[in-house]
């Protein structure tokens, strides 16, 4: 179970001379959790933006299961199985928790206008299945009791969990998590850790940007250290955190 799911080859990007990605080569494998470590401004979130197509690279290519994604727009890449979360969560405040998750199913026949106008019978079945999947996911995260609540009424940690649950409603083959643990503690922390591990065990390739070194150490199979838009090292998390050179880069002078 270590097939290459995502391959990034020689990715470059700079904004007005500021390099955010320099010759990035990265592979993510099925069933493995990779932690992306580095100081602020190292280009970790930018790398997610380049992989998902939110930002277009200057050069380089991104492959999902061997197929190049470069010509596809962000939503199309997501439909292929590239899923991501956001540092600032970005939930839909006008919708309940359950409805936030239902938007996460890529294809919802009830959302095609013609189907709305001429309601087909199979819609009800699809709707029921999607609701069951969403409820099941929420229950596994310990959020079953807040399915009907508005997301703004939830504590921050639970909102982060909803963000991850929403990204898992599609058929993700590769999951990019942007700081899932920032501001998360207690039960939500444990739930997050459990769910990310579960996702990886189902064969999804996971990449996590995180500042919480304990979380990285507990969860990640390996770590990648980024600095100034370049990958400086890749190895076990223990090795990376022991390396005095990397520690100095991380904490500055």
């Amino acid at each position: 179970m270590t097939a290459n799911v995502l391959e990034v080859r020689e990715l470059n990007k700079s904004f007005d001379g500021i390099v955010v990605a320099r010759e990035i080569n990265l592979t993510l494998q099925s069933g493995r959790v990779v932690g992306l470590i580095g100081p602020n401004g190292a280009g970790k979130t930018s790398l997610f933006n380049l992989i998902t197509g939110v930002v277009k690279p200057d050069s380089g290519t991104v492959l999902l299961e061997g197929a190049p994604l470069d010509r596809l727009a962000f939503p199309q890449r997501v439909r292929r199985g590239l899923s991501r979360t956001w540092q600032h969560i970005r939930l839909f405040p006008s919708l309940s928790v359950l409805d936030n998750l239902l938007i996460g199913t890529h294809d919802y026949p009830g959302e095609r206008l013609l189907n709305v106008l001429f309601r087909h019978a199979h819609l009800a079945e699809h709707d029921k299945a999607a609701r069951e999947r969403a409820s099941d996911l929420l229950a596994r995260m310990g959020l079953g009791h807040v399915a009907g609540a508005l997301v703004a009424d939830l504590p921050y940690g639970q909102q982060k969990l909803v963000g991850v649950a929403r990204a898992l409603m599609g058929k993700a083959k590769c999951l990019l998590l942007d700081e899932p643990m920032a501001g998360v503690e207690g039960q939500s922390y444990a739930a997050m850790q459990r769910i990310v591990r579960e996702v990886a065990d189902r064969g999804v390739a996971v990449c996590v940007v995180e500042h919480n070194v304990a979380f990285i150490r507990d969860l990640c199979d390996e770590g990648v250290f980024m600095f100034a838009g370049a990958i400086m090292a890749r190895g076990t998390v223990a090795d990376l955190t022991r390396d005095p050179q990397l520690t100095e880069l991380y904490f500055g002078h």
Partner: protein
Amino acid sequence: MEYLYGIIIIVGLYVILATSFNLIIGYGGLFSIAHPVFFALGAYASALLARELDVPMPLAMLAGALVAVVASVALALPSLRVSGDYLLIASIGFQLGMLEVIKNLRFTGGPGGLTNIPPFLIREFGRESYVLLVLFLAVAVTLLVRWIARSDYGRAMSAMRDDELAFASLGRDAMRMKIVIFGLGSGLAGLAGALYAHYFRFIAPEQFEILQSAAILTMVVVGGLRTTWGPVVGALLLQALPQMLTFLNLPPSVLGPIQGMLFTGLVLVFMFFRPQGLLPAEDVWHGREGLGGTRRN
């Protein structure tokens, strides 16, 4: 009686215009001021098809709506590709430019307008039949927009309006959704135009000026953005009330300014005392109970 029928029809048409504009600006979050020109396109297309080519009138009216759909999609496609804000700029250009085109073409009657538009239903069944048709369609359009807003499609519109990037990150195409909303809303304006043309039987460019856009926007905002009945109340208040004043038998020199003051006065009062509109805007999405959506606990 004929005067009263005229008022009812005008109010009914403004209900369609305000409700369809509510779909665009309220539910879709799309800023456009070209609503009057789609109203005009529907009116001109239907009138010309019926007058010049003897197309049966129900067909001509549908074609009028279709012309508005096609024109709006043609406007939205390139502008939304640039950015959402660009639609506003493009719509100003389209509103002003298209009206100039209509003024300068020969077959549209130029600035003088188009006369002798064939009437629909009036000769055979009397004016009442047309009043009923317009009222029926006004109710139908209001319920249609309500149905869409509360369906799964409405839930997706709500999410798209909340956060477009998050919407895209779930594999959803915000641009396609915006084009559909804009096309449908503009098509309904075109239908209102066609209904207008075959009752009043005279249309001229001055009836579709940019000021109409302000009037329609005011109806939606005063009535209540993203509500079913807000645009209906807005259209009633801002169209029927000034018209009713004419029954007071005031001399025209007094009546005109009073109507103007009433209109601007209402807008000012609402801006200060009730900016959310008569009916509060729905910031939380409500689906139908059961199948359609999940209600808040």
